[in-house]
């Protein structure tokens, strides 16, 4: 489907309102295949809404969103196909508590990809090994720590062999000592060439893996550029203010 020049994700003047609140204002963004984009900004800036629009967990009201060349519309068939190509990792993990770790990982490959069970389990074990928790496969999510759960969530998304991975503040709900294990997993994933869009406050992670950092405030993209440009020579006052606040905290 995708040729070399077609962007993996393309947002064109996207607008969204929650009631009267204008949460996305003319947001345009292109993410190339293999590119790693970090979206940052103060809370309420619309960054989570933006990333959730990309797999239509939120529905945008104006503008166009194309994922892998397909436009997001009300067509649920096409939407399910797009969603199966786009992995998502949530702030609150959202593992399925009634299924084991292994079943969490094999569910979508078996039911969406129609993969035979044995093959799906082998695949799941491969990814659980990659996130370094193969020994937890038979346990239930409630028996794992937050960091382990988030790594399972990453493995679960990877089992669908997605073309794009979306991360919605993946470390914000974690205790400090568990943040590193999740970030390490994400860095490894980035090194493997995955296309990634990541909403995060972890500026160290952004510096290390991002090709581009997008700064959002009050629903619009204020500034974007390489991590070096953004952090060393911010152009706008809003970004300067944001950086001074976030760096003071670290």
């Amino acid at each position, binding site marked *: 489907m995708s040729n070399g020049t077609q962007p993996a994700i393309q947002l064109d003047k996207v607008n969204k309102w929650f009631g009267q609140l204008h949460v996305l204002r003319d947001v345009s963004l292109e993410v190339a295949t293999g590119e790693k984009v970090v979206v940052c900004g103060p809370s309420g800036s619309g960054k989570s809404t933006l990333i959730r629009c990309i797999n239509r967990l939120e529905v945008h009201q104006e503008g166009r969103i194309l994922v892998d060349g397909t436009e997001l519309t009300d067509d649920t068939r096409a939407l*399910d196909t797009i*969603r199966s*190509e786009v*992995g998502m990792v949530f702030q609150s*993990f959202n593992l399925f508590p009634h299924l084991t770790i292994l079943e969490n990982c094999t569910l979508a490959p078996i039911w*969406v990809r129609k993969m035979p069970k044995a093959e799906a389990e082998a695949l799941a074990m491969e990814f659980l090994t990659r996130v370094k928790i193969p020994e937890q496969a038979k346990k239930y999510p*409630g028996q794992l720590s937050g960091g382990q759960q988030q790594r399972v969530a990453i493995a679960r998304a990877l089992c669908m062999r997605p073309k794009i991975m979306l991360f919605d503040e993946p470390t914000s709900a974690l205790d400090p000592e568990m943040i590193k294990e999740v970030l390490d997993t994400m860095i490894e994933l980035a090194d493997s060439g995955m296309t990634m869009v990541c909403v995060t406050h972890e500026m160290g992670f952004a510096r290390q893996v991002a090709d581009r950092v997008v700064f959002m405030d009050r629903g619009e993209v204020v500034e974007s550029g390489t991590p070096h440009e953004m952090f060393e020579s911010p152009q706008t006052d809003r970004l300067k203010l944001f950086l001074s606040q976030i760096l003071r905290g670290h």
Partner: protein
Amino acid sequence: MATTTTHASVADRAQPPMLVAGPVAWMRANLFSSVWSSLVTLALAYFLIKFTVGLIDWAFLKSVWTVPTDPATGKLNPDACRQAKGEGACWAVIWDKYRFILFGRYPYEEHWRAAIVLVLFLGLFVVSAMRRFWRPVLALIWVAVLVSIFTLMWGGVFGLRYVAQDEWGGLPITLILSTFGLACAFPIAVLVALGRRATNLPAVKLICVIYIEVIRGVPLISLLFMASVMFPLFMPVGLNPDKLLRAQIAIILFAAVYLAEVIRGGLQALPKGQYEAADALGLSYWKKMGLIILPQALRLVIPPLVNTFIGFFKDTSLVLIIGIFDLLTSGKVAVTDPIWQAFSTEVYIMLGLIYFCFCFSMARYSQSLEREFSKSVRR
């Protein structure tokens, strides 16, 4: 305490002292913690013992178990019961009438068929309760049992005598109405609960809301009346589904509404993240519901579900008013026999015990299910 730390006393303390744990301590803490509490305990103990002694006396020691047959008339002579009246129970009425109470007006010499039906029902309950049978084959078992039950009850094939539905009665009727009522109501309830939450399908949602509110706003008795009296008026001449089927449909429609609202509660209690995670994996609506949402939502609502089940098991006795011969009706009719008219208490106690056995089993089973499911989700 600090002065007694010798080796011997440490060894003694391997077990907690009697006054901290154990039955004596428990009684002290819970029954005799103050003067008032001691007085209440003693008063309640007095009444409890007096009642228990009285009950044992009435039910076992002074009770009449059988009465002789009067040689002149060939009928039972209940004089012994009449003499014991007020002091001892007359279980002879049960002994004489138990087959009528269990099977109603079903032809006496065909009772074995109704008895097999009861055994089939109990077997069905046991099999359905075991998790290792929770596979598609269970649906086949249900259909097979359903067919055997109605073949046995109706007869007319395999050399079995035909027994019209008017002659059915007793416990088989109660079990047919409640078992198939709840079994059919449950899937309808799931669909209605999902429909009521389908915000992107306004027509479906509206139909579900109207169905729920209309049926829920009407007493079951009036629905049964509608089914038995009014419904046939609207049907073309000659097409008249039998009374039991009509009552069964009314019960299904009614139970489905209550179950649907219970299930909707479970759907709403699930965190939004579960829906989103399923969506994000590309699961279609029905796969999302069937694999992720319903398994969790239904576990959450086991207690109110079983509550509703138990309620409906007993509510089937309302078919009495449209002349269907269920367990309660046959009990009532049994004591209209002139010989036994004075001994309805004993019959009602027996009916109560039968209902209690079924309801209590459901309650215990639901507790074991809850325990089993909580294992997997425990943090």
